[in-house]
């Protein structure tokens, strides 16, 4: 969720009321934003000899792009509190239509195909407004525009450039200009090198770096306005004295392009000589059927079912009353002439988050107040509860193991490749383990295929615990399985580990016997006559274990024979690999025996 910092007392002034922190918190809670911090009583930074005025840091829901600046927060809260009506945003004809054109060249399709523009006429900037304008662009770039990959904004002093403009894509070397806040002209190849190490801009370079052509916005006289999505030109820089602002927005996503442009211009059209008006720009882009005039700013009219609104919220309000309530959330609604069950709702251009009538319904609930909605009985129908069978089976193993004196642990499911294979003297056959593509650390490389790494790490981290340690876990491992939709499956395992002065081999063996006894599975020998169901063990030669002291567990269930797991004394090299030397015991190694079986077979 984005957090927006606003000047506390200026906001209260805009809202026409002084609030206590608690009162403002309550207002935020009711509206669905969150007061994160009030810096009134904090140590505030001193900039140019002046202490920063108290700030309110407000968390805004990720879909409310119209509240990412001071202007939007003040506007929406004022509408919500009934102080002002929803603004009527208008697109007014420009003085000189010839100038207000961006000609798009087909090459741009190779790198960043879309552009839109608008002009804010006779805007009055103050320091606060200017900073808010920059900050809004920043927030839009970070959130909706996904770090400028989808959309980027360039704003210019219109009086320093002349239309018609062109949007082109050229080889990097052919684009030369002085970038914003620089003095030296460079071509864009040099520019990429220049900003390589820049903390702020460096992270956007990758968006176009490898493209054979870079996008560029020129004015009539070939002055570079911007090299999107990296940087604007110094020439057309906006200052506090700028009155006419040319906004160009480039994008790879058409929907987000329109949203971003709408947000930038609606929020700051408030400061135009004629508030809430914007002058349009014609985009000539025939090669991709995108010739059009931007922005539109037309509200979207949608039909909302009255019975849906009332039934979801538990209200029974008249259409008129619903319309009145909805005006608090910036909607203009009126009952339909044609259908008594329909409310015609006009959604302002500032609310692109409204996709479906459910969004209007939620806003109705907010207007009413969530905590004031009528409560209804939640039990409409009787249902029958029940556990998942593998969990029920797992719980049998868990309780039996605990009753046998073992302690349950819950290590992590992700582990390193070495922990799962090399450290256990096991080989990765490439067909078993699920491997992660983008872990942040070596600790999380794969989904474990065995519960042993977690148990051994738990022993390692409990070096000062008294011996013997007797721990177990019942949980899932993950395995590749090409036959399934998800190409993988979970498998529920039981595993236990003993660490003590003696090997504990017979003890883990005894635990196996005990657990299987509890599942009505009897101990048999493989050759036993009549082939009854039951389990038997066979000597196992695997490098995980100390030779001669390991066994595979075999099960015959309903006549079907399979190996379900193994147990044994761990090979001393495994103890070394996991660094199991006990600190409290003079860094001695103590033997560890483990047991691991698959539970799914008992389902």
């Amino acid at each position, binding site marked *: 969720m984005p957090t927006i910092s606003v000047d506390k007392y200026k906001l209260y002034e805009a809202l026409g009321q002084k609030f206590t922190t608690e009162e403002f918190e309550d207002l935020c809670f*009711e*509206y*669905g934003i*969150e007061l994160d911090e009030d810096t009134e009583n904090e140590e505030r930074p001193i900039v140019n000899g002046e202490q920063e005025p108290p700030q309110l840091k407000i968390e805004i*829901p990720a879909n*409310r792009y119209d509240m990412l600046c001071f202007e939007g927060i003040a506007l929406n809260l004022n509408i919500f509190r009934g102080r002002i009506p929803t603004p009527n945003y208008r697109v007014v004809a420009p003085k000189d239509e010839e100038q207000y054109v961006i000609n798009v060249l087909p090459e741009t399709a190779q790198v960043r195909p879309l552009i839109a523009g608008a002009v804010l006429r006779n805007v009055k900037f103050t320091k606060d407004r200017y900073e808010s304008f920059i900050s809004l662009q920043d927030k839009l770039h970070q959130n909706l525009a*996904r770090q400028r990959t989808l959309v980027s904004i360039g704003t210019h002093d219109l009086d320093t450039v002349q239309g018609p403009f062109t949007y082109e894509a050229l080889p990097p070397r052919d684009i030369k200009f002085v970038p914003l806040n620089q003095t030296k002209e460079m071509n864009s190849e040099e520019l990429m090198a220049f900003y390589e190490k820049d903390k702020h801009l460096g992270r956007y370079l990758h968006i176009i770096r490898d493209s054979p052509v870079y996008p560029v916005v020129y004015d009539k006289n070939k002055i570079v306005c911007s090299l999107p999505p990296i940087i604007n030109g110094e020439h057309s820089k906006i200052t506090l004295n700028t009155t006419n602002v040319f906004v160009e927005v480039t994008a790879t996503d*058409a*929907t*987000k392009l329109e949203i971003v442009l709408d947000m930038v211009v609606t929020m700051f059209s408030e400061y135009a000589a004629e508030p809430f008006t914007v002058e349009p720009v014609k985009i000539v882009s025939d090669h991709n059927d995108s010739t059009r005039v931007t922005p539109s700013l037309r509200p*979207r009219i949608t039909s909302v079912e009255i019975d849906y609104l009332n*039934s*979801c*919220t*538990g209200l029974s309000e008249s259409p008129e009353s619903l319309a009145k309530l909805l005006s608090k959330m910036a909607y203009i609604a009126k009952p339909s002439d044609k259908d008594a069950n329909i409310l015609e709702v006009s959604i302002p251009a500032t609310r692109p988050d409204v996709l*479906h*009538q*459910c*969004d209007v319904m*939620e806003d109705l*609930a907010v207007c009413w107040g*969530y905590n004031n*909605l*009528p409560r*209804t009985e*939640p039990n*409409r129908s009787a*249902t*029958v*509860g*029940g556990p*998942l069978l*593998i969990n029920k089976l797992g719980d049998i193993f868990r309780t039996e193991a605990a009753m046998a*004196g*073992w*302690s*349950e*642990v*819950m290590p*992590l499911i*992700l582990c390193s490749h070495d922990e799962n294979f090399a450290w256990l003297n096991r080989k990765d056959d490439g067909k078993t*383990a*699920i491997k*992660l*593509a*983008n*872990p942040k650390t070596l600790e999380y490389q794969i*989904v474990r295929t065995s519960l042993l790494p977690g148990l051994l790490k*738990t022993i390692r981290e409990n070096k000062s*615990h008294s011996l013997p340690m*007797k*721990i177990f876990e019942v949980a*899932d491992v993950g395995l590749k399985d*090409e036959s399934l*939709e*998800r*190409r*993988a499956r*979970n498998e*529920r395992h039981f595993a236990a580990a003993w660490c003590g002065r003696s090997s504990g081999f017979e003890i883990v063996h005894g635990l196996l016997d005990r657990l299987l006894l509890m599942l009505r599975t009897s101990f048999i020998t493989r050759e036993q006559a009549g082939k009854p169901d039951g389990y038997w063990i066979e000597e196992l030669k695997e490098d995980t274990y100390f030779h001669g002291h390991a066994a595979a567990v075999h099960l015959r269930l309903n006549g079907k024979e399979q190996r379900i797991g193994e147990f044994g004394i761990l090979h001393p090299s495994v103890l070394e690999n996991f660094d199991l030397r006990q600190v409290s015991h003079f860094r001695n190694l103590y033997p560890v025996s483990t047991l691991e079986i698959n539970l799914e077979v008992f389902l």
Partner: protein
Amino acid sequence: MATQNTPSSGDLPTQLLQALSIQSPLVSSEAFPAVPALEIKAALDRLASRSMITYQTIDKEEVILEPEAEQIAAQGSHEARVFEVVRQALEGLTIQELETTIGDKNVANVGRGRAFKEKWIGKGKDGKLVATVDSIKDTTQALLQQLKEGKSADASAVTDLKKRKLIKVQKVLNFKLEKGEKFALEMVKEETDLTSEMLASGAWKTANFKPYNFNALGADQDAGSLHPLNKVRHEFRQIFFEMGFEEMPTNKFVETGFWNFDTLFVPQQHPARDLQDTFFIADPKVGGKPEALVEGQDPEEYWQNVKEVHQNGKYGSIGYKYPWSADESLKLVLRTHTTSISTAMLYKLAAQKGPDGRPPPARYFSIDRVFRNETVDATHLAEFHQVEGVIADYGLTLGGLMEFMELFFAKMGITNLKFKPAYNPYTEPSMEIFSYHEGLGKLVEIGNSGMFRPEMLEPMGLPKDMRVFGWGLSLERPTMIKYKISNIRELLGHKVDLSFIKRNPAVRLEKE
């Protein structure tokens, strides 16, 4: 009086018994002045535990004479010594002669000053020191001798001596002991436990049993134990069962982007689908298109519906209007929430027919592990448990969801909930659930809830008027609050302390 020899500590109990046989009651400091008080106490405790003696502790203040005071007690005060020397010298003494005679410059100087002050001596015609009285009374010496013998003295006089740094007062432990019920001259062998041999031989009838120490803990049980987090999980599961919820098959860590995001109406450019937040899988990399969960289901239709609703809008929604990518949808991820399973369960439900021919109402829950590509810190791990509940029914209202949440959380002793509007891509309305936390003195978020969006439900084929509540919370957070744990790594993972697991009490969520 008993012996003044220093007995060895091993013999001490016997010596105490012998002393007591001669004189009872007895004061330890008088009978055994040289034995340190702590040794005496250890011996007395042994004897008292067998009821051979009883004793009382007497706190006493004891006056200790400083070396200078010891000298005064033996030889007299400085002024008295000066007086004596001066008196004996018939001709009087010069200051130099006084020093030589006394042999201690300090004594001579201090004593001279005081003797003058007491008007015992004065200066003769030739300036020599002469006695002015015939005899004096050396009260300082008398007082110190008295204190040295352990007798009490006038309080103001003692204070004066303290000021003069001649004495100091310290507390001493002293014991008054008397014969006990089972007094004897020797300690008898005591049995610590009743054994089967004693029962067989009948020795129990005559044996002396050591009294049980009722102030100590019993023997360690070396008990097995369940993990605290799983104990809390058990409580949650019980609550769900009580309320008619069926447990969902969440034993699937790997999901396609389709089930984890697309079906939930999470757009493909949503930040949650970033490499920064979600674990993608390198091997296997790509999953398959959805398969039918119930015979007769057309998963291809579902797939197309999901695509439509994102790309162009459908079911009364304008959609996100972006080119939806099948490749993105088939990428495999580690599930970031169990809602992917809830979705599959609802898709299955859509194909079921109740008595009225429509999908029947249902309640589902799960508590299982989810994965986030988080940077690990005190409150974040790459894995945690999500508690999730789903109610599907006709005619559900927001007020019903709030009422249900009140009931659900009341079972954990959490009441007076507050609901805050929130944003979540797949629920609308969305509500964050808050509860007032007494300890923190503020509202604390305890969960998230909402009604699933029609864009999520209708592509499955669920009827438009079937509404579905969903809510979720982490299992770790309430557990950490309950057990006052500030670091999640102390609760989940291999770094958890085994002693914490073993000593963790039963959960009893309804109790504070």
